């Protein structure tokens, strides 16, 4: 369908006061931004300690958001069940975050504050996020660091024993706390250990190797989930007073991404098909510093932390035909293009800006490496200035990882890097309380759309996951539950539950019975290629229209020619994969449709038709300063677009400039 018809569909819906769809009430508290969250916390209802054990909460996903929420809610006295597809909650993909976590502590005395972190995040997100949510995130950032240190997270320290900081892209202050290049691992282990304590105490029941197949919505509320035990194949339902999805992002829609192999869109897509609106699915982040693909068998891409841009200098040879090894190319024949184009931020421009600049270099034939698909990230100046010891201390594990993968030693040869899909800012639409459009269904962390607008700043994903899990959900869930005191959970043998469960069983049987010729992996690669080509770093109407005709055809072929061997009542990784790919295919269509309707460039969404003279993203604030929230209308029908108009009271949208 064309964008025109999208707009027609919108006009059929009620429009609220500021032009937003009346179906979307963001519930941003009134009052000055500094006091919104405090006022809201006071106004929200509470559940008294002795009543908390009467409530059941289901949490899907045990990454930073899920594990932090589960540990906190279990500690508070609620009955919590957690589910994850990995064999232990400790393995969720938050673990792979390398660089760090932002917090407005101002320990460097360099002008940081909650207001500045708020400002940087809104600006970095290219003015497509909510002021209220982002300010709260900046406020809670400082509590996260306190909490994690108390748990024993071994953050980097100065010799005096106090915490160290580093700088990161998109900011002019040093506010990033880090634990070598393994910050995500250490933060997740902290949350996992807090969760493990609750598991031992019996407040949390943990179900590892369980995958969500569907969300149960009954009488307009989320009342439970259908899950599959990935070892026995048993499909069962669990019901509760509230369901939290903390299932991460959908970056694997590109097939090649820095996400873990298991990361998938299934939970949020199933919820979408049960009534939760999907917001801004076209906002995806392409991370600038990943190792370029080496061959066609590549199964995933590996990220090299953005923190490397602190000391590494990015360049390509001035002459596209220069085939000399990098150390033989003299200084004047190198183009340090980020430093040249963006002198104020240099190599530390935000991710979207750095990624597109790299793409322009490679597209212009100046790529380096055997496939000419990368740019250099060079540490020779920093090594000369700081000494090898300092470089080793800061980045040793990253250098080792690079050498393992490429066989090249970055202490002597510059790294080769290229952008790859890394994070997704879009996700299920949530209000200020992190509740989706389905009452009782909450969404936390990367799975929701809320805080990063059209582009996330480095070291802010960990901050958001933990803020949602430790400090937001425990309040907002209580507010929701308080109104339901005395209400029983829907029994698992209720016909409404059994119906959803039967549908999930049928889908599984269907995947097993097609008996075609192509593997789920084949379809995933095919989908990834379409999405990367037409809805990747650069997008245009023509390409998106093409994707919108190719994806349904791929879906049709999938249900005609898929081959899944083995049975459903045993461990069957092909079956798991097939279910995820089926959902990715449907999701990809919505992602392209969203990219097509957004006739502007902003953050990670770059419509080549809309760029400034010097190739930067050109926003259209008059027509597109809104959150696009899509409502499922049934299989084969086009989703309806609802708009939540964004108001900017404190940060006035300007053309982002990092020059």
């Amino acid at each position, binding site marked *: 369908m064309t964008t025109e018809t999208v707009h027609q569909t919108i006009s059929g819906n009620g429009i609220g006061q500021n032009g937003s769809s009346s179906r979307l009430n963001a519930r941003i508290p009134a009052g000055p931004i500094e006091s919104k969250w405090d006022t809201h916390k006071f106004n929200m209802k509470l559940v008294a300690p002795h009543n908390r054990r009467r409530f059941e909460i289901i949490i899907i996903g045990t990454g930073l958001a899920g594990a932090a929420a589960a540990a906190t809610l279990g500690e508070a006295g609620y009955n919590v069940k957690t589910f994850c597809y990995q064999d232990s909650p400790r393995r969720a993909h938050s673990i792979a975050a390398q660089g760090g976590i932002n917090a407005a502590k101002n320990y460097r005395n360099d002008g940081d504050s909650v207001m500045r972190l708020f400002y940087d995040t809104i600006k970095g997100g290219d003015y497509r996020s909510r002021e209220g949510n982002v300010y709260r995130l900046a406020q809670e950032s400082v509590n996260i660091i*306190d909490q994690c240190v108390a748990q024993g997270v*071994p953050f980097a*320290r100065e010799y005096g024993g106090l915490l160290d900081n580093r700088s990161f892209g998109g900011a002019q202050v040093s506010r990033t706390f880090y634990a070598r290049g393994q910050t995500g691992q250490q933060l997740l282990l902290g949350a996992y250990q807090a969760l493990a304590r609750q598991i031992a105490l019996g407040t949390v029941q943990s179900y590892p190797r369980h995958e969500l197949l569907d969300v149960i919505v009954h009488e307009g509320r989320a009342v439970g989930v259908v899950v599959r035990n990935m070892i026995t194949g048993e499909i069962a339902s669990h019901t509760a007073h509230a369901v939290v999805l903390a299932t991460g992002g959908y970056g694997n829609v590109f097939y090649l991404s820095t996400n873990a192999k298991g990361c998938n869109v299934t939970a949020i897509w199933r919820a979408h098909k049960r009534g939760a609106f999907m917001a801004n699915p076209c906002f995806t982040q392409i991370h600038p510093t990943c190792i370029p693909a*080496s061959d066609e*068998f590549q199964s995933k891409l590996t*990220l090299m932390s953005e923190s490397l841009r602190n000391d590494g200098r990015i360049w390509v040879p001035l002459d596209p035909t220069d085939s000399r090894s990098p150390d033989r190319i003299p200084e004047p024949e190198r183009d340090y293009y980020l430093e040249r184009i963006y002198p104020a931020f240099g190599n530390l421009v935000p991710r979207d800006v750095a990624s597109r600049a790299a793409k322009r270099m490679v597209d212009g034939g100046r790529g380096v490496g055997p496939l000419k698909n990368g740019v250099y990230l060079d540490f020779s100046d920093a090594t000369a200035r700081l000494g090898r010891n300092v470089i080793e201390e800061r980045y040793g594990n990253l250098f080792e990882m690079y050498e393992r993968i490429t066989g090249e030693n970055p202490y002597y040869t510059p790294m080769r890097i290229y952008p790859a899909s890394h994070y997704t800012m879009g996700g299920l639409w949530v209000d200020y309380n992190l509740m989706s459009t389905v009452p009782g269904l909450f969404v936390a962390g990367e799975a929701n759309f809320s805080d990063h607008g059209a582009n996330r700043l480095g070291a802010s994903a960990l901050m958001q996951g933990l803020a949602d899990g*430790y400090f937001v959900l425990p309040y907002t869930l209580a507010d929701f539950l308080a109104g339901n005191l005395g209400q029983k959970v829907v029994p698992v043998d209720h016909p409404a539950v059994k119906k959803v469960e039967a549908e999930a069983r049928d889908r599984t049987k269907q995947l097993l019975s097609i008996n075609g010729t192509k593997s789920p992996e084949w379809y995933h690669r095919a989908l990834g290629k379409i999405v990367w080509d037409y809805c990747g770093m650069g997008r245009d109407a023509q390409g998106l229209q093409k994707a919108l005709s190719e994806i349904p055809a791929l879906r049709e072929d999938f249900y005609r020619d898929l081959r899944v*061997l083995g049975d459903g009542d045993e461990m069957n990784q092909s079956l798991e994969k097939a279910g995820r790919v089926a959902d990715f295919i449907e999701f990809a269509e919505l992602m392209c449709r969203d990219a097509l309707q957004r006739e502007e460039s902003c953050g990670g969404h770059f419509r080549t038709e809309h760029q400034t003279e010097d190739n930067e993203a050109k926003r259209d604030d008059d027509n597109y300063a809104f959150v696009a929230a899509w409502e499922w209308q049934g299989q084969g029908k086009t989703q309806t677009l609802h708009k939540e108009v964004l108001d900017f009271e404190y940060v006035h949208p300007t053309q982002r400039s990092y020059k």
Partner: protein
Amino acid sequence: MRVHLKIWRQKNARTEGAFAEYDLDNVSHEMSFLEMLDVLNEQLISGGQEPVAFDSDCREGICGMCGVMINGEAHGPQRGTATCQLHMRKFSDGAHITVEPWRSRSFPVNKDLSVDRSALDRIIEAGGYITAPTGSAPEANLIPVPKEVSDAAFDAAACIGCGACVAACPNGAANLFTAAKIAHLNLLPQGQPERWSRVVRMVETMEDHFGSCTNYGECQAACPKEISIDYIAYMNRDFVKAQLKNRRLIAQRG
């Protein structure tokens, strides 16, 4: 390059397994070991055979989900490298490669190369944490930690919980895994209040599930994060000290 694979196939925990042999052509040097298995699986599927089940997730050597015995070595021939980070350039053309699941009574086989490592979670649940309810933390810089202490704690905290130490140990002991977590927490000032109860509870739970350590040192050699066996000595010392500390507490209570 070409490789000849001998892979353990087992339907589930209740059935017996056996080796199956496969030849794979067109393996590239740039491929990771798991990408080589991906290629094998695609070949098996197109030939109508069930693919080999194996665990992996992040494929960056940090989540600890992957891990197989490769020619008898946990995670294969490259030191300090998880299976997912091992690349085929470490093998020669025509290599014979035997691939087995972790071999330990504490890790029952789920299917083929996938095993159940949940006993490791039981050890963490027994005390591998610092009790710090959300919201109760003091300001972060109120707890200075000497850099050397923080670094030593970090070296231990780098454990990814993959279970290679158990698989490599002739006794199937989980001492390196347990010691790494104990050292991470017991070295830090924040870990002191629970230090003695932590070591006792974790060691006792470890012994319920795993074999005993007799200082072979295979764990350290197999560890993809190169965690030092010194931490086992640290754990043992804390365990012994804890007996005295606890006895004194009992005496004080009368």
